[in-house]
Structure formats: structure tokens, C-alpha cells
């Protein structure tokens, strides 16, 4: 039983059919083809699949896809403008804030949710913002520093 769904993905209109009961992670990867969203647990506990829905961070693996009808979804694939990286991406590169890279898309989206709402976060704000995202490689410190760097970046662009 397939359900039609329409939403915006990184600013573009998307229409697809989803299996009844499908989660948003599967719809984005399998039906829409956005492979920048990764799956780590399929139970909402690791944050790897974090996307933004209408600006709010959500774990896509436990989000019923059809509840996203008409909403605006953002994933890591939509961060760069052409060849230009988002300040968060630049900061992650400069701070070596990724090793295996698997948690990185989710971390970037969790960080973007923070900076879009709070352009001047404290360290505690950053720690809370990525508090739902597990990283097994970096020990988190480079990621925290990268998010703080991005918030201070002079070249912050409009989200």
C-alpha cells in the first residue's frame, strides 16, 4: 500500500510514493535518493539520521514519512551553495571534526538547527544541541570547537 507524499527537500519540491508506515529516513534514501542522510540505529537513539523539518531537528528514522507532507526538510546534501561550503562544513574541515564521517551529516544538521536559532551559542548550548548525536570516533571536542568556530565566522551566510 503506497501513500503519495509531497514536501520540500533542500528548497526543491519533491513528490514520491512511500510504503505505508515508512519512516522518513527510508523515504529520503530509497525513494528520493538523498544518500547524505545516514541510518545508525533505526530506533531514534543515535541521532545519525538527524534532519531539519521546518527548521527543527528531528530523527528521521522514527518519523512517519507521511507526517512530513507539505513541510520543508533540510539534509546535509543541501548545505553547500554550489561549490561554496556552509560555514559549519568549513569549520568541521578545519577542526578535523570527523574521522569515519558517519555521524557527520547528523551532527551538521543538529548544529545548523542551533545556529539558525541562536547565532551566539555558549559551549553549553552546543553541547546540548549535539546531545542527541553519538560520535564513536572524535571524542566530540573537535565537533564542539567547530560549531563554536562556525558561530564566530565572519562569513556567516544567511541559512
Amino acid at each position, binding site marked *: 500500500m503506497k501513500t503519495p507524499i509531497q514536501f520540500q527537500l533542500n528548497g526543491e519540491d519533491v513528490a514520491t510514493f512511500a*510504503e505505508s508506515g515508512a519512516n522518513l529516513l527510508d523515504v529520503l534514501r*530509497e525513494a528520493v*535518493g538523498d*544518500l*547524505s*542522510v*545516514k*541510518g*545508525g*540505529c*533505526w*530506533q531514534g*537513539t*543515535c541521532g*545519525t539520521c538527524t534532519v531539519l523539518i521546518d527548521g527543527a531537528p528531528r530523527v528521521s528514522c522514527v518519523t512517519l514519512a507521511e507526517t512530513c507532507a507539505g513541510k520543508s526538510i533540510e*539534509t*546535509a*546534501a543541501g*548545505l*553547500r551553495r554550489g561549490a561554496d*561550503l556552509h560555514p*559549519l*562544513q568549513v569549520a*568541521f*574541515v578545519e577542526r*578535523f571534526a*570527523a*574521522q*569515519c*564521517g*558517519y*555521524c*557527520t*551529516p547528523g551532527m*551538521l544538521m543538529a548544529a545548523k538547527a542551533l545556529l539558525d536559532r541562536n547565532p551566539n551559542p555558549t559551549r553549553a548550548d552546543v553541547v546540548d544541541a549535539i546531545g542527541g548525536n*553519538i*560520535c*564513536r*570516533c572524535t571524542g566530540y571536542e573537535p565537533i564542539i570547537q567547530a560549531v563554536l568556530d562556525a558561530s564566530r565566522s565572519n562569513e556567516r551566510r544567511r541559512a
Partner: protein
Amino acid sequence: MLEFRKDIFADERDDNLKEVGQPTQRQDMLGHVTGTSPYYDDHRFANLLHLKILRSPYAHARIRSIDDAAAARAPGVKRIIRAADVPVNLNTLLSLIQFGKDDEPSLASDVVRYKGEPILGVVATSERAALEALALVRVSYEQLPAVFDVEEALKPGAVSVNAVYPKNTFEYYGKYDHQKLRFGDVEAAFKQADAVLEDRYQMSPIEHAPAETNGSIAVPDTNGRVSVYTSTQALFFSLDTSAKINALPSNQLHFIGGTVGGGFGGKVDTMTEPLVILAARLTGAPVRYRFSRHEEMQFGSPRGAERIYIKDGVMKDGRIVARQVRAYFDSGAYTRLSSYAVVKCVAHIPGPYTIPNVHADVFCVFTNRTPATAMRGFGVTALDFALECQMDKDAVAIGMDPLEFRILNAYRDGDMKAHRRQAKNCALIECAQVVAEKASWPLRDEFRRMSSRQGGGEHRTGAAAERTRAPAPAVPAATPRPAPASPQRVSYERPAAAASPSAPPPTQAPAGSTHGAPRFSSVFGTRRR
């Protein structure tokens, strides 16, 4: 950020290398931050099927019967994969280097030996269909007594876990049930020691918990081969293991590694590739076998638990004169890499310290627990946890600063190790000194002046070692090592016919060298003769 302490051993190197000694960026960092690094699952295939595995709910049981008829008829199911379908259904990972006997089935048929052991596979058009079909399989088990403790497993009459190793230990060289290290006479030394400390250390199994679970996708290729996209850390290793289990020549498999989404040693066991290849060949379709998070955490192989007994004899002046280690590796139900971990463990005993009397027995033990595997320095790191806790206790017992205690006992160049090789390229003392500096830990001047390059030699292992050691190389005891005649310089160009005056040739030509690349490795031993 990184700090390079190039002041240490500065006379041994030119700081003119382009990459070594300089910070550098990851080649895949751009891929990571744009979400384009290709993990094995970042490939789409039409009509992809899904393999899910039925696992034993018991730690030890005989399988009396399996009824998969209902599962085979379930909606979306394309194929059931049974033990009889696996071409070579007994393997051990290190058979690739002729180490150990084949002991582990890909699918259990008569006995299950750990909770979670794979019994049967369902290949279906969706993961959900496969999971629902699995729920329809009826297995009749006869539960058997199980053993979960390494020392219990070694007692006479213990439950036998592994049919290939019925006494619950791995066999080294076909006849030894453990690995030994003998150097000097620990019993005599304990009698002379001012303090003897004995303790027991226990590690738990540790799950790697990578962000990306284990998985692979097998795709029948246009020419009869199978392409495999896999999360493995060890591409050729997994290819050869899969070839053996599927009775295929290895040139029939094309393995394409993904960026590994966290390995840490937990993606070397080749857990998914053999069966997913079989599934693809049996269905003619691309198949994915992906561990769920629950499978990864509960059944994915962990770092094996180790139990380590250490007995040290220590003198009041700080010298450790004897170290006795008895250790048990919990390999779980099958060998995998634990046999090798034990070899590494024994090679590491007694730690980076010069001790004249060393005695070790290390066992690779089978229990009805999840088979263990490699993780981050396996064989060594858990032992180091135990050794370093013991070092602290030793220091406290004799009233010595724990860092100075380590510096005093540290290896120095020229020391005879318990393995009867000379220590070379030691650096523990310098590391300890830098740690003390960073931690503002006070060290007495005498210890701040110590060096790995001074004071070493066979005199440190002394007369006790004489009795058991091989004929010594001709280095006189108690002679300080001579400083090199001129600083060793290593050039990256093969020596030109006419040597340039600004680059003096090395004082000793490396013996038997067949290549011009620089050698810092102690294997070739050209550093700091």
C-alpha cells in the same frame, strides 16, 4: 591541536619530510562534510532483496528440528538459506594464513553454541517481509548446560563448547593448550623481593558500537562474478574468506570497500559477506544483509573479556625483579582472532619494562559467549590496563612516585627483553617525562635526566637471566653505549654515484638491504646502533 616534540631524538632525523611530521588533512574530509563519502549502503540497485537471519535464543542447545515451510511461503520471500546450502560451512578466519582449525559454521545445523548464533536466512523483497517470515520459522531446541566463565571452562568435566577444541582451549602448533613465556626464575626472585603483590584483573567484553552497523550488498555481475559492496575494514581478507566459504575462486568476486563508518576492529570478522554472496547467487538478484542496531550491539563480536592475574616482586629501591602473569582470553564460542590476540599478549608481557625474571601462561579459552574479535590493540590494551594498575599498586607498596617508578623500570636501548631480543628504539622514558611536564607532575631531577639511550644493557637483567637465555651477542656488560660517531642522517634518494659533500653517508650500511627507502623499523634495526 597536534604538538610535535621534534626536540626529542632530534639528532636522529632530518626535519625535511613533506608529509611525515606535518599535520595533514584527511583525503575524505570533504566527502564527510558534504555527506558524499560512499559507505557500502550508498549504492542503489533495482529489485534489491534483503537477507535477515534467524538467531539462536540459547547459549548452548542442540537443534532437533527446523520447520521453515511457513516462512518459505510468506509474502515477499524469495529463498530460505539453510546450513546445507552453504558450500563450505566450517571456517576459521585465520585459516587464510594456516593458523588454527576450521571451527565455525556460517549457519549452525546441529548445535548452537552462543546466544545469537545464525541458524537460517530469509531473503525477501523487503526487510519487513524478511522479519515477518523469520517469525514464522519453528525451531525445536534441546537446551544444554553452558559455561560462561573462562576458569570454569578449564576445569575437568567442564561443558565442552567447541567440537573442534573439546577441552575449551585453542591448540597452538597442534599440541599446546596455551602460550608460555619463561625468563629467569620468578620463584627465586619472589623469595628475595622486599614486597610481593598479587592481584586479579577482569575486563568486560567491549562492544565497538560503530555508528554504521556491519553490512554488505552482493550484486550478480554481468559476467557471472559477484560484486560486493561491504563495510569491511579488511577488503582482501573478507574476499578470500568469502571465496572459501562459497567455494569460489577468488577471481569470481569483486569486492568494493565503502568508507568504513567506524570499524575499530569490529568489521574484520566478515560476518555478512559470505551469506549475502550465497543469497545473491541463489536468487540471481542483488541482496543486502545489514545488521540492525540490536544485532550489532548484542551479536556483533566484541573485544573479548580477559581475566589477568599478575604477581610482582619489587625491591625497596624500586626495581621490579619478578613478574608472573596468568591470563585467560574469553574467545566466546569460536576462535576468530583470539588465538592471535593471545600471541600478541604474550609478546607484550611484561610490558615496556626491563624485568629480569618473567613467567607467563596465557590461554585462549572457549565459552558459550558471543565470539570475540579484534578491537584497538587487542591482545595488548587490556593487558596494559592490568599491568599499569599493578604498576601503581607496586609503587604505592614501596612508597615510590608511580611515574618515577615507571621511568626507573622502563626499557632502555640494549636491554635484554624476556623474549630474548634486545630492546631498541625505546621511548617510554621520554614519553613519561613529557607527560609529567604536561600534567605538572613533579619529577626529581635524577628522573628528568634519565634517557632511553643511557644505562641500558644486559647487566640490567643480570645473573638470573643468564640461566635461561640464549648465547648473548658480544656486547660487554656494564658498558655505557657509545655515542654515534656522527649523527645518522637518512636520505630519501638512493645514494648517487658521487656522494654530495653536504650529506655524509650513514656510518653503517644496513645489512642485506634490498631497497633504498629509509628504515626506522626495529625489524631492520638501522636506528641508533
